[in-house]
């Protein structure tokens, strides 16, 4: 083999848990940490789900519930967005999938820095607690500035939560970034340094490519958010003017002078656009593996898939200002950013083609993970294509700040990655627990979620009305037509149904843990190394006496002349006769 032995991994003295606390709470086992990340992210995601019900109730049935005031509405919008993007999607795809899959798929015993990995989770947990502090009595609620937190609005009294809510939000983000950095350095180091014998870069499953590239993006992009959080905190607490020009708000003058609100937007989106791919790339990787395994066919065009991930990651750093076409920046920026944005469509389209071409002449098993994977592809196609509208600067002018944007980003980076998260959970739950999730509940959950989210977001593209509105027809306005009103109501009712279906999923997770069917080592007949552990669930240290040796890529499905339709990565090649 080209790669040298990795002696330290063979007989590493692992940190050995002695008590319940060190095994399940302060654990250094990447698999336990992955589950901790996952449970926390799902719990906070349920909060975001309830918040979305509150805002949809107001939009569908304005005035029905008096307690939904404009403040409650804007706070719900803000917290829903921030929770979903950062504390659920980023935390789950990297914290949970990343932690579970990186060592197992690479044939490593654990992350390279297990102690730092443990700290990473607990810092993330702290950031979630800080985020929720705004809801405590006396704090006057969390910020209602929208998840983009644009100044000057975010720190002025015309916005809910301008006293404490914005401070807890900024502090929570800063703490989250610390957690992410510790986790991210671990993933990168482990991918580069701890691959087992024979696991060359170009034999890694695409899940690892997606997670690895997303982590690189995160390590480069999150610092921009970190400094903007610090600078806005200083503007708010010490009265500096990084983002604050001279203003006259609610009749009162302020001491601010000379700052630039656009500077914040540039910093925010220099983070914010790569963030889209921090969420999307792990989902791309995972869904590639799901499709290949359940279609019983190699992923089509593996090498191009890898280079597409790398190209998308690189390009994602030079497209950020497409979020700012109508923000008042120099108009000539539009030419540059529209061009780079539409270029990024090419590698993205290639990924879509290769997923669908993998289905060509396959033998598709419509298991629950596969259902979610196929739903992802269709949802992502819609969300990606509407991105071509918004990325082309002049087309964006009439559409920006309308429900077209809401529909676009929910499909492309809300629903699509969440479908992958569900698919991944149904796929790896048997390895994590040793038991299968209930198939019937899984299918009910799938169909309600897929059809429901499509029914929610597809028609939203046609709502050419401003977003983030508490109410539409105020005073003599008639901007909302009766047919739009009916649409808003049906979207809201669908959102209730889809939300309730998620509790079926939670129920499935809990009940199957004790009562699910025994899974065996490799229920899906997959090839990658996580299915080749000596025990299921894998024990601390993952492998027995010796690490596995890799002889092939992860996609040897239906190889002609072979008896079985899959050949795991650690099966040696036959001696050529």
């Amino acid at each position, binding site marked *: 083999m080209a790669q040298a032995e990795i002696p330290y991994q063979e007989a590493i003295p692992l940190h050995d848990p002695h008590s319940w606390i060190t095994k399940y709470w302060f654990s250094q086992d990447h698999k336990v940490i992955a589950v901790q990340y996952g449970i926390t992210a799902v719990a906070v995601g349920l909060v975001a789900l309830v918040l979305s019900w509150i805002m949809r109730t107001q939009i569908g049935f304005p005035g029905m519930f008096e307690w939904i005031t*404009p*403040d409650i509405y804007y706070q719900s919008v803000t917290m829903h967005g921030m929770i979903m993007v950062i504390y659920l999607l980023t935390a789950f795809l990297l914290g949970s999938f990343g932690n579970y899959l990186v060592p197992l798929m690479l044939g490593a015993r654990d992350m390279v820095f297990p102690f730092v990995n443990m700290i990473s989770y607990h810092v993330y947990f702290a950031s979630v607690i800080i985020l929720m502090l705004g809801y405590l009595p006396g704090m006057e609620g969390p910020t*209602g*500035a*929208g998840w983009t937190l*644009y100044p*000057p*609005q975010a720190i002025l009294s*015309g916005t809910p939560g301008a006293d404490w809510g914005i401070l807890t939000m900024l502090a929570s983000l800063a703490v989250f970034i610390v957690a992410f950095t510790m986790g991210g350095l671990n993933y990168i180091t482990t991918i580069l340094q701890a691959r087992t014998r024979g696991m060359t870069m170009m034999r890694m499953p695409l899940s690892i490519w997606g997670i690895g590239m997303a982590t690189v993006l995160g390590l480069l992009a999150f610092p921009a958010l970190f400094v903007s959080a610090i600078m806005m905190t200083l503007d708010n607490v010490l009265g500096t003017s990084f983002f604050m*020009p*001279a*203003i*006259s*708000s*609610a009749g*009162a*003058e302020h001491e601010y002078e000379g*700052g*630039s*609100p656009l500077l914040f937007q540039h910093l925010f989106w220099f983070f914010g656009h790569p963030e889209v791919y921090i969420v999307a790339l792990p989902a791309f990787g995972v869904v590639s593996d799901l499709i290949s395994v359940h279609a019983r066919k190699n992923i*089509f*065009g*593996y*090498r*191009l898939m890898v280079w597409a991930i790398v190209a998308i990651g690189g390009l994602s750093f030079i497209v950020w200002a497409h979020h700012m076409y*109508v923000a*008042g920046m120099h*108009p000539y920026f539009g*030419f540059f950013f529209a061009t780079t944005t*539409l270029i990024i469509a090419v590698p993205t389209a*290639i990924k879509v*083609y290769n997923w*669908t071409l993998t289905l*060509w*002449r396959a*033998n598709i098993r*419509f298991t629950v993970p596969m259902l979610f994977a196929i739903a992802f592809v269709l949802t992502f196609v819609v969300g990606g294509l509407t991105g*071509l*509208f918004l990325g*082309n600067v*002049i*087309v964006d002018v*009439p559409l920006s700040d309308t429900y077209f944007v809401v529909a676009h980003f929910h499909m492309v980076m809300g629903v699509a990655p969440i479908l992958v998260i569900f698919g991944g959970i149904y796929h790896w739950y048997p390895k994590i627990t040793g038991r299968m999730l209930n198939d019937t509940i899984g299918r009910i959950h799938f169909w309600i979620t897929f059809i429901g989210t*499509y029914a929610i977001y597809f*028609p939203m593209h046609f709502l050419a009305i*401003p977003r*983030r*509105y*508490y*109410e539409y027809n*105020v*005073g*003599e*306005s008639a901007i909302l*037509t009766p047919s739009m009103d009916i*649409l808003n109501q049906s979207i809201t009712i669908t959102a209730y149904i889809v939300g309730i279906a998620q509790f079926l999923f939670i129920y499935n997770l809990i009940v199957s843990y004790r009562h699910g069917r025994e899974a*065996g080592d490799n229920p899906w007949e997959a090839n990658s190394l996580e299915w080749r552990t000596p025990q299921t669930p894998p024990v601390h240290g993952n492998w027995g006496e010796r690490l596995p040796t890799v002889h092939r890529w992860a*996609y040897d499905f*239906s*190889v002609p002349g072979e008896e079985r339709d899959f050949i795991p990565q650690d099966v040696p090649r036959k001696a050529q006769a």
Partner: protein
Amino acid sequence: MASGNNHSSQDKGNMAVAIFLLIIVIVSVLLSFFSPWQFTEIASNWGYIDFTVILTFWICGIVFVVIGLFMVYTTWKFRYRADARADYEPENPKLEWWLTIVTTIGVVAMLAPGLIVWNDFVNPPDDVQEVEVLSKQWGWAFRFPGEDGKFGTVHVDNIDADNSFGMNMADPNGEDDVLVQGNTLHLPVDQAYKVLLRSNDVLHDFWVPEFRAKMDAVPGMITYFWFTPTRIQDEPYEVVCAELCGRGHYTMRGWVKVDTQDDFQSWLGTQPTWADVQAATALDAMSPEAKRGREIWAAEGCNACHSLDGTAVVGPTWLNLWNSTRNLADGNTVTVDEAYFVESIREPAVKIVEGFSPAMVAYDDETVTQDEIQALIALLKESVDAPADAPDGP
């Protein structure tokens, strides 16, 4: 052991996926053509913007249908069969190159016309006129440069109850600037206008859907877009704020009335210049107590939502409010007296006037004292006659 334990499930080979994907593709296409939710009828020169939207719609729509139907076919044709076996085809460089090139052509076909129209959008024509839109939480104000064609300079430090634009007193260019009263802007048809956007406080975005164009207003700088109104209609066009600007964002509306050139000029003649406004302020016959109330009205931010000139902003105007009878949202009526006025400041959500939202925060005794409320009441009692034309919203 590993194999065989879930081969029994019949669901693995079912056709539901192909059927539902087909339904979704068909419904999506039908909805795109026959939905009742279409763009508003255009009323500006930006038909080219609509063209780029429609071009993008067709290219993306075709791609959606092709990929969708391809997925329908594969999920139907290659669904699981126990006796079948998938092909083994790791790569097909020729096909991959071909797809890359076709995609690139499609992208260029959308980008190139888009950039050409954007070039028009950012470069106003030579005969363009200027109008300023001043935005603030939560309303719009408009200014024309007057006969000299030059705007007077402004600064937020100059803003007070008598100078809501922050006009610079020392700048002679400002004397003839026309300050539009109320929240309706009139513009002449077929004349290109460059809209200069300013904000006193936070980000806003001036958007009239019928004109297609929009742009953020950013405090500390002047942004712009240009357009030519092309369609006169009886009803004015509604202005909405398209950038989240705080709890009153959704109430930030205004109106644009497109007139013939003659109608526009006669309307413009009724609007006061900055010199007129200054003279009127000097002759103001208000009592000292009401003037003190007016300063409190500006300093405490009442003016953000309650006008004195009859303009309906976020909250009810204070013009002709005192002693009037109001219909409440809960069906009751109330007379505006001292008790109701105090209650509306201390606990604003208790009695909401019909047609308004409970957007106001409560002001406690430390923020607005009882003594200050007396001054505000004096202001209310003297706010009975329209100081300028009543707003002419629809």
